[in-house]
């Protein structure tokens, strides 16, 4: 379970203090499929960074499975990311010099890769419909295929939480729908908690709850 308690994240830009998150409290149940919607600058990506243990808050708490991220030094937050979280970025962010399979394996590299992990990576590529393209480099894949590889990469560590920042932002509507289908399937099959950030309401149809953010605060919440 993820619990955000009065979460604040302020940045100082020159003399101005920017309140990216200004007292956000949310409870997210295990296995929930949640979307965060808001105009640009509303704080949705900052919120995702906090849940994803990429950053520590100015005040408040981010509690993931009973661990308060705010109390962990930034330099060892990577352990949490490695074990519990999978990221899907807007622009897939695949490594150009590596094949699809190698890209999927990247998160495991520091621990060492064995045949079992290879097998898992191939299974994940199969699950996203790209087994045949495993040995292709990103330049040989379509935008939708790249995003699907990125999803397989996010899942390689068997994370409890998958965070997707505008996962359909760089693909056409049809591919966007396909990606959302895959996320939904993950959510149902493996009980993975999925949180997506989007500004496209169309894409929130598959999710169970929508949180609207505005100026760093929760504007409203809708259960579907």
């Amino acid at each position, binding site marked *: 379970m993820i619990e955000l308690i009065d979460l604040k994240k302020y940045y100082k830009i020159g003399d101005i203090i920017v309140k990216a998150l200004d007292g956000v409290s949310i409870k997210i149940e295990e296995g929930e499929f949640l979307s965060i919607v808001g105009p640009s600058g509303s704080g949705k990506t900052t919120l995702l960074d906090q849940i994803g243990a990429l950053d520590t808050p100015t005040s408040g708490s981010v509690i993931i499975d009973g661990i308060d991220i705010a109390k962990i030094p930034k330099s060892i937050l990577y352990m949490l990311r490695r074990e519990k979280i999978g990221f899907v970025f807007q622009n897939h962010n695949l490594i150009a*010099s590596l094949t699809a399979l190698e890209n999927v394996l990247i998160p495991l590299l520091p621990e060492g890769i064995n045949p079992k992990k290879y097998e898992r990576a191939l299974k994940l590529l199969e699950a996203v419909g790209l087994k045949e393209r495993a040995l292709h480099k990103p330049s040989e894949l379509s935008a939708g295929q790249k995003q699907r590889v990125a999803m397989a990469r996010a899942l390689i560590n068997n994370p409890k939480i998958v965070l997707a920042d505008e996962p359909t932002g760089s693909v056409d509507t049809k591919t966007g729908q396909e990606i959302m289908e895959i996320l939904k399937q993950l959510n149902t099959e493996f009980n993975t908690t999925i949180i997506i950030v989007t500004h496209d309401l169309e894409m929130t149809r598959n999710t169970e709850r929508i949180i609207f953010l505005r100026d760093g605060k929760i504007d409203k919440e809708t259960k579907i």
Partner: protein
Amino acid sequence: MNFLEIVYKNILRRKARTFLSLLGIMIGVSAIVALVGVSNGLKSSALDVMGSLTGDISVTTSGTFFTVEPMNESVMDKIKGIKGVKYIAPVVIIIDVEAMTGGGQGPSSFEVYGIDPVAEKLIGTSATEVKEGRALQASDRYKMIVGSTYAKMKDLKVGSKVKFYERQFEVVGIMETGNFIMDQMRAIPIDVAREVAGVDPDIIHMVRVKVEKPGTEKEVALRINLIVPDVEATTSSEQTEQISEFLDTIETMTWAISAIAAIVGGIGIMNTMLMSVIERTKEIGVFKAVGWSNNDVLKMILLEGFLLGLFGGILGIGGGKLTTIAFAAFLRGFQANITLVLVGEAMLFAVALGVFGGIYPAYKAASIDPIDALRNE
């Protein structure tokens, strides 16, 4: 897939840039290997040569160490009378102008020695180490003995005729000492040498001295210097020392100059890697977002530096070896001495440069904030 594989792929991404930074290290390491190898080779040859060339003590005009300044033969009587001197042998040195101006095709030894065959035999120098034919004899006139390397270069055999200073000489013997300088030597009878050089019959350039008791060389040389005016007696060990010191200085300078070249190469690596880290900011951000630690990133970039150093070192050692082969072709019979220690040192140096060049870029990469990196476009 492992770290090494991903690092290898990273450095192959920009092949031209990688090649150029490798070139920097390669040139530096080549220079070290080639110059130190050549200097090692010269050192062992030059040190070998001293004893056999000069006898126990060599006496020349004072202030003319190893140059050709004439002395009067009468000096020999004075030396002979000094306590502790057993045998002496005079030498006339002729410069082979033709060989000197012959460019790369000529021998590397330009001096032809005029020797007294009888005295030479007593003193026992390399001119008596004849492999084929015979040594010079007292009755010989236009006869010559040549070193085996020189014989090979000029395709000479015992009985061959050689033209030297407009005169025809017959090769009667071929010497072989195993030393590339000695084996390019030529010797003719001393009277003929004077005639060829057009000097007075009482002129000599050097007197070689053999002492009665080994171990007294220094003492005898001191006596010669005190008693005989205007000459300088130097023991072969002193000369060896002087040459050795000189060659050591050259070797140190060689290292220093090559090291500067290699360090420039190292800075090149640092620059390349820094550029590559900046280019990959977003990628490094992704690595961190998916669970890599700062140390994992540090390790990856340092490994890149290590690999660049390793490849640069391998290429450099190869390049150095090729350079010495080319050098040996120019200086026939010469053997550069690239020892395993030299190869090891050069390799270590190259790898250290690569890793050192990688430290700052690796530190930069490790301190990249994943949030900033992921927003980086």
